[in-house]
């Protein structure tokens, strides 16, 4: 049988016939050379070695401290790892989401009737059909599908499930959404003003604040030999995981739903699903697989409730995989920060006091902003012993892409500021940057900005080790 199929296949790949198949007249691209089809040998399945030698390091005791290879490494190398988008189930269909083109608008109506008549379409969904249409790790201020107001160009407003991804995409263009545009605000320093358009009216745009106070900063600045001030700003960036967000939901006849998801936190993900779907937790099974990069961007649900309800409506497994465009405009991003640093120092480089104001562009929804605000604020003064400190940090809604968890939760932003500031001061005082840091860095038992006694401190060791490896002293100009 296999041999016969092979013969048939091989007989089909005569060059003359390929011309006919790949360059039909109506395409009118005869100038391009015809693509050679890849002939998959049907009688020879892809062979991978099963008798690879055991990794000797993985067999050693004691286990801790060993440079043990990862059991998933071999599977990655052989292309055997199953990411969500590699999964397929009998009768599986595909979902796509229509997203707002407006940064801020009231939804007047959503009409899915024409989309439902499109070829291959089995179901549509709007936010009104979601039992509890909100989610979020701190504030539940984000709709699963917006049905009243869109707050950034990227908010999902309706979903379609169809036999193929292409059919689902095609049907999106037939959904008619009427919007009434609202005034929008994009700059966090504008959004913080009283008369700025309100992203979540009637609430203030400032939705989280944090203060850290230690000693008397004003007195310390007065006592300082020199006071430095600078403002620093950072940009919005994407996590860009190689694997985009992807899930498959299957609602069974017992009302139990199984969801395979690229989420990085399944326990809390199931809580969110139970809440949005209005179901007991034991009716939901959430399975994570090997995730192709998270970096904080896969820490909350996205399309899972939508897929679950579409599966319930159609009786079919429903898969939803983000395009790269979805990944940029609808998943979370890194918070842009505006950071004002004022630092008073003695001539010998000792920092006496530091005043910091942080304004976080909190985007359209809270997501993990409170955590980013908290960590950013706590870490903002740097790994330095500073007796007098004032940190004021605010997170502000804007009509931009949602900002959320991303590798470092505000730390890369404040580190850029406090370390640039540190070098400015070192240069002005004529002190070597390494020396300037060593003079101020935490020691074992130092007290942190929040009054915590620090243990297992290794900042000076890391400075000295890096400087030595780099050849810092030798490379002085």
């Amino acid at each position, binding site marked *: 049988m296999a041999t016969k199929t092979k013969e048939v296949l091989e007989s089909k790949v005569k060059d003359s016939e390929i011309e006919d198949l790949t360059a039909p007249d109506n395409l009118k691209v005869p100038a391009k050379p015809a693509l050679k089809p890849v002939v998959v040998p049907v009688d020879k399945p892809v062979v991978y070695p099963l008798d690879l030698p055991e990794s000797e390091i993985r067999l050693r005791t004691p286990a801790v401290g060993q440079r043990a290879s990862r059991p998933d490494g071999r599977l990655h190398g052989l292309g055997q790892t199953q990411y969500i988008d590699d999964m397929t189930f009998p009768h599986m269909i595909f979902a796509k989401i229509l997203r707002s083109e407006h940064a801020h608008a009231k939804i007047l109506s959503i009409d899915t009737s024409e989309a439902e008549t499109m070829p291959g379409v089995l179901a549509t969904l709007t936010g009104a059909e979601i039992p509890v249409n909100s989610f979020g790790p701190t504030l539940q201020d984000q709709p699963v599908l917006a049905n009243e107001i869109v707050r950034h160009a990227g908010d999902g407003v309706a979903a379609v499930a169809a036999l193929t991804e292409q059919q689902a995409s095609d049907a999106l263009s037939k959904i008619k959404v009427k919007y009434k545009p609202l005034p929008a605000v994009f700059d966090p320093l504008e959004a913080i003003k009283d008369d700025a358009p309100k992203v979540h009216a009637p609430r203030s745009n400032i939705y989280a604040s944090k203060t850290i106070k230690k000693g008397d900063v004003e007195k310390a600045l007065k006592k300082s030999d020199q006071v430095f001030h600078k403002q620093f700003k950072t940009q919005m960036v994407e996590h860009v995981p190689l694997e985009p967000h992807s899930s498959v939901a299957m609602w069974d006849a017992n009302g139990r739903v199984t969801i395979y998801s690229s989420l990085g936190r399944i326990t809390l993900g199931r809580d969110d699903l139970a809440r949005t779907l209005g179901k007991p937790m034991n009716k*939901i099974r959430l399975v994570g697989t090997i995730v192709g990069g998270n970096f904080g961007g896969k820490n909350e649900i996205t399309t899972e409730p939508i897929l679950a309800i579409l599966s319930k409506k159609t009786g079919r497994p429903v898969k939803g995989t983000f395009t790269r465009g979805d990944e940029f405009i609808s998943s979370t991003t890194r918070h842009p920060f505006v950071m004002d640093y004022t630092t008073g120092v003695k001539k010998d480089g000792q920092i006496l006091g530091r005043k910091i104001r942080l304004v976080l562009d909190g985007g359209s929804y809270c997501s993990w902003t409170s955590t980013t605000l908290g960590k950013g604020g706590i870490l903002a003064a740097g790994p330095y012993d500073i007796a007098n400190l004032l940190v004021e940090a605010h997170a502000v809604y804007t009509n931009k892409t949602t900002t959320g968890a991303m*590798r470092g939760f505000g730390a890369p932003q404040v580190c850029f500021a406090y370390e640039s500031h540190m070098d400015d001061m070192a240069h002005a005082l004529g002190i070597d*940057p390494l020396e300037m840091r060593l003079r101020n860095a935490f020691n074992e038992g130092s007290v942190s900005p929040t009054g915590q006694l620090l243990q297992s401190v290794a900042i000076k060791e*890391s400075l000295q080790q890096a400087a030595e490896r780099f050849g810092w002293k030798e490379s002085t100009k």
Partner: protein
Amino acid sequence: MKKRGRGMACMWYPIGFTVAANPSAATVKVNTDGTATLLTGTVETGQGALTVLGQIAAEALGIATDDVHVVSADTDTTPMDTGAIASRTTYVTGNAVIKAAEQAREILFEAAAPMLNVKPEQLEARDRKIQVLGFPQQYKTIGEVAHHSEIVIGRPAIGSGSYNPPTVEMDPETGQGKPFSTYVYATQIADVEVDDETGEVEVLRIVAAHDCGTPINPMLVEGQIQGGISMGVGFALQEEILFKDGKQVNPNLTNYIMPTSLDMPELEVEMVDNYDPTGPFGAKGAGEPTAVPTAAAIMNAIYDAVGVRITSLPATSEKVLSAILEQKAA
């Protein structure tokens, strides 16, 4: 003309959630041949978490990395876990794994004690054996003991445990409190070349020295540091989502430029010798902090090279060049 510069940046970073409870639980089952299965609710997101957790379970049971199979991320079967977030897996889930493994090990000690004519507290688990402390020649293999415990005594060696990092609420007025159980520290130093006619910045070399407590798997820590630096290079020089009238103008990888292997500098990565008594076998964590100081180090190196202070990221060629021109004009 191309000008060389060097810049350093150091940082501190906490492990786990800010004050909020973020527990992990784990279950360890020892098979009757001395191998084991670890159940964890965390998710492998490419960082090697499952390998590290397997090594921690193996260490606590006195067996090898390959002896432990790790089952993860299924809400029907695996215990709760706060997840792959906040650089918490090695520290928080790792501590839960130790507790689970110790409970299973205690069952093995209780089964082995009469077999070796000692008390359970006189035993240790090492090199796939349960042996008498101080008398390693007196032992039974873990397989023998596990088989005896389950098949003869009827007490399978299964343990469960959980861990939550201890914190103290922060005062709402002053922020005073203990928001985290522990912190890690790091320094990165960048060596760059800046073309003062085009503003182009090339990062030639980055030296990184990171504290993560005692590394459970040094190779995976190195991988984290290398990956974190690549993210830091993108944040420093290239990546930025641009908006026009509230809409993203570059939501694709053609116009949103990330560093590729060709943009990566030579990396020299080291771990700082440290031990945290609250961490699993002295470990803390390594995930997020690796991306933290890179941009700052590169900006300081740009200053060293051409004397301009870049105050907003990313330091694109256009931005660096206009800063150089402004400085010349002044």
